[in-house]
């Protein structure tokens, strides 16, 4: 078991600059989730960690060892591919024991290791099947099992759950969490599903266009997003961002009546999560209900606030109807620099 250190990591494919200087320490036993939009370089980073891609610049350390030039097979990392990459001509047992066979371990030892993991993952009845004879979820578990049998220093998961249906995915999320608690091995997990990120991670790293946007525990990313990108990427439904002006009287959203008290000054971007509103008659904003999405326990209101469109989450049952005008009070405000999108820090001592 070991941690990971990335120092100024760059990856270029000819002219394409994919990773633009990644600096990060991952402690031993951490569950780091890498999120970001499609094409931002998540898989590339993971493949650099695995050694399947050469690092163009910078250092990569696993534990204390610099591994830039170490072959993938010698890094003692295990990867679960999005496609699972199970060997179609080998049985589940042979798939799971493959790495140990390469390491020339005695057969008895391999069998014992495979049996133990198969038991944990409830794969015992499937051991003699070929991958083609398994369901998607079972294949996913076999791919996990194959990684676990190796007892690697680091697990690398590339969107391991994206091929599963919604219910199986939430089940497997729990399984992964349990697995991590039991093995206490460092895990780097790539996903573009922010629910997965929030539920699994001890720390999340948000990546956009090859640049790290923010790294931190899920709560911190949720409560104090470092910029508008993270603010909108983390949390569902995503945060409302509105152009506003701040002065002594408070913040006024462009084209909307009503000032809200806040320390930010000048032109800013104001962020409010849909869940951070209160519908109340003495609310500062007045908005028109355009559409209501009823989600069961909650309803998502799509509102017209002056020239802007915002969404607001309310609890069901709610008496609000489409076409109605309601008044709103935002409870938690996030202010960002309008030019850079960077969060405007709270004055010292203040808490939100």
């Amino acid at each position, binding site marked *: 078991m070991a941690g990971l250190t990335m120092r100024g990591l760059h990856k270029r494919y000819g002219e394409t600059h994919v990773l633009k200087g990644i600096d990060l320490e991952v402690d031993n036993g951490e569950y780091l989730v890498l999120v970001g939009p499609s094409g931002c370089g998540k898989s590339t980073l993971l493949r650099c960690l695995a050694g*399947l891609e050469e690092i163009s610049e910078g250092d990569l350390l696993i534990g204390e060892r610099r591994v830039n030039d170490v072959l*993938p097979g010698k890094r003692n990392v295990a990867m679960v591919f999005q*496609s699972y990459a199970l060997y*179609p001509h080998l049985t589940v047992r042979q798939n799971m024991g493959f790495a140990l066979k390469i390491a020339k371990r005695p057969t008895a030892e391999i069998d014992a290791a495979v049996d133990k993991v198969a038991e944990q993952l409830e794969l015992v009845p499937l051991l003699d099947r070929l991958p083609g004879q398994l369901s998607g979820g079972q294949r996913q578990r076999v791919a996990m099992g194959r990684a676990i049998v190796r007892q690697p220093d680091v697990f690398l998961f590339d969107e391991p759950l994206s091929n599963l249906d919604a219910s199986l995915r939430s089940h497997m999320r729990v399984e992964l969490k349990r697995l991590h608690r039991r093995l206490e091995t460092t895990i780097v997990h790539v996903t573009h599903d922010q629910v997965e990120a929030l539920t699994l991670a001890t720390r999340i790293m948000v990546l956009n266009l090859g640049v790290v946007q923010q790294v931190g525990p899920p709560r911190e990313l949720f409560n104090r997003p470092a910029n508008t990108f993270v603010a909108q990427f983390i949390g569902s439904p995503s945060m409302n961002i509105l152009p506003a002006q701040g002065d002594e009287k408070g913040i006024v959203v462009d084209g909307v009546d009503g000032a809200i008290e806040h320390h930010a000054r000048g032109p800013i971007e104001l962020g409010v999560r849909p869940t951070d509103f209160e519908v109340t008659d003495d609310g500062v904003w007045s908005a028109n209900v355009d559409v209501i999405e009823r989600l069961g326990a909650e309803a998502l209101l799509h509102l017209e606030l002056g020239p802007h469109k915002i969404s607001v989450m309310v609890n069901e049952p709610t008496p609000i109807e489409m076409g109605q005008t309601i008044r709103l009070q935002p409870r938690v405000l996030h202010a960002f620099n309008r030019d850079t999108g960077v969060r405007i820090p709270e004055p010292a001592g203040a808490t939100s």
Partner: protein
Amino acid sequence: MSRVKSLSVALGLCLAAAGAVHAQDAAPVELKLWHAYRDSEEQALLEAARVYKEQTGVQVTPIGIAFGAYSSKVETAVPRGNGPDLLIGAHDVLSKWQRLGVVEPAGEDSTAYRAGAGAALELEGKRYGYPLAFKTLVLLYNPELIQDPPTDTDALLAAAKAHTGGGSFGLAYEATAAYYFAPWMHGFGAKISGDDVHLDSPELIAALAFARRVGMDEGIVPKSPTSELMGSLFDEGKAAFVISGPWFAAGRKRAIAAIPLPTVSQTGLPALPFLGVEGVFVAGQAKHPGEAAKFAAWLAGPEGAAIRQELGGQAVAAKDAPPLPDTLETSVIRAVLAQAETAILMPTDPQLPNVWEALEDALRKVMRGAATPEEAAKGAEQYRKVLSRPPPEAANPVPYVVIMVLVGLGALVWLCLPLRDPNVRQEIKNKKVDYLWVFPAAVAMLALVVVPFVAGAAVSLFAHSQGEWTFVGFSNFLNIVLSRDWPVTSPLSFYYTLVVTILWTLTNVFLHVSIGMGLALVLREPWIRLRGVWRALLIVPWAVPNYITALIWKMMFHVQYGAINALLGFGGEPAQIDWFSSFSMAFSANLITNTWLGFPFMMVVTLGALQAIPRDLEEAAELDGAGAWFRFRHVTWPLLKPALLPALVIGSVWTFNMFNVIYLVSGGQPDSSTEILISEAYRWAFKRDLRYGYAAAYAVLIFGVLFVYGRAANKLAGKKVL
């Protein structure tokens, strides 16, 4: 309205066309003349036709046919009435042509011919054809190098030796061909036709020893010379003497002179070559036999002869041809005419091809040093005896026919058995239309595959000898399978050839697959630049027709002038490897050629199959710590296998029957040892006494071997053994 009009127009056109055809009937006759002449001889023929038209108004149209295809074309087309009015051919095919009805007896002819010419075209007291020209070997020489040509062999060898060295050769001739050996044979008093032929006679042994001395030991003759090689050597002034015929003199780029062949110093006897007499024949079923005979007599007569002598450089048979001045230009014709007076008329003995085959076999062995003249002669005599053994006893066809009919009926009944089931009958009724769709394809399969196969298989139950077919039952098979004519270890036995064929197939397929697959794997590597260019280049050997490639490789393996020996010399003196003198070298030459031809197919198949293997499987293995070999062995190869297996089966069947490479590169040398079954079958059918039945039996056995192999391969594939 308009339709009626157009109909009447069409009718009118038809009538007009019919009228035109009618009018042509009255037009002067046109005579078609088939020949295999080229260059100046063909020019002379065209000129003669033009002159004849001017004089008589009769149109003669000469049609040239490639030399190699000539006799088979004549022998198939003429008896079926698809032939010309006139044919040009040599006297030694006359008896065959007469038997097949290809030629008609000659008509009136007042021309006088030189001695022997007329008699050569006689058969059973009747004359066929009109003698045109003599073809025989003479001693050609470069008059710039040789002023005083030798008249005996000692002087010839001494003069040749004096002109050998520095890339030049004193004497060039095809030392391993029986036709060129014949003068020495006659010069030592041996003979190969007539009632009492023995190839192990002391005279023949002495002749073989002499041939070896001239062709090898003296070092004056270039190795395995082809006519192209000899031609270019002579044109470059690098060959002082050439033993060849008037055909060699045609189109030379330097002055050439000739005299008759010398006497053999050891015996005092002249070295007499074989003589061929060419004639023009009236074809069987000619459209205008009378006119054809008139033209033939004219062409053979003084006027035609003058044109052929002047333009075509022919040594004409007509006595009244214009006299030849004593100049350098006419030297070759005069030498041929002089030689023709003493040369020995090429025998038309039906056993000759067998003697020829055995003799050439012995000659090659002696030249290679694989046998002493005595051993070679003894072997040749044995070989000749087996070849000229009469065909197997005729068998009673009745039991065979009964068995065939029973087997056929049994098969039919077996095929119809499912019809007892009413469901099946109903099913067939329901799918009537479907059967209709399949019908044309089924008929085509029957006509193109089944019928030829059955006919070919039926031929194997017959023996063919001198145009006679005899039903012999399974004798051909028994002779082959029990190896009655040869010990199993002889290259002529079926088992020897089978082992060679299997070795050939295994080594080839192994190399094709490993090289093809290796290249495909390399082409996939990310560091390869210009991938598309490499891929295209590597497919080229496959895109070139294989016989062209085979001929190129054959040239590259030439012992003195081949690129391969030059390369093996590593910049210095070329290596002196004689690629066709030992089994292992000749087999390797074939193998190299066929590997060159065969790997691209496997490469293309592998490239295709690799596309279907996800890259992340190999990456997963890489992460698991597998090295390149382990990855290939346990991940790539098992996944490639299913796609490669059918290609492997096809490739091995192709190789098993790869006639072109064997025939063109090693030609079975040495001593038929590198022959494979299919080329061996070809030799039995066309080179050794036209044993069609025997060859067909070979073909059936080849089919049997491949059938068993195919079944076995399928079984093994099903069981995942392979």
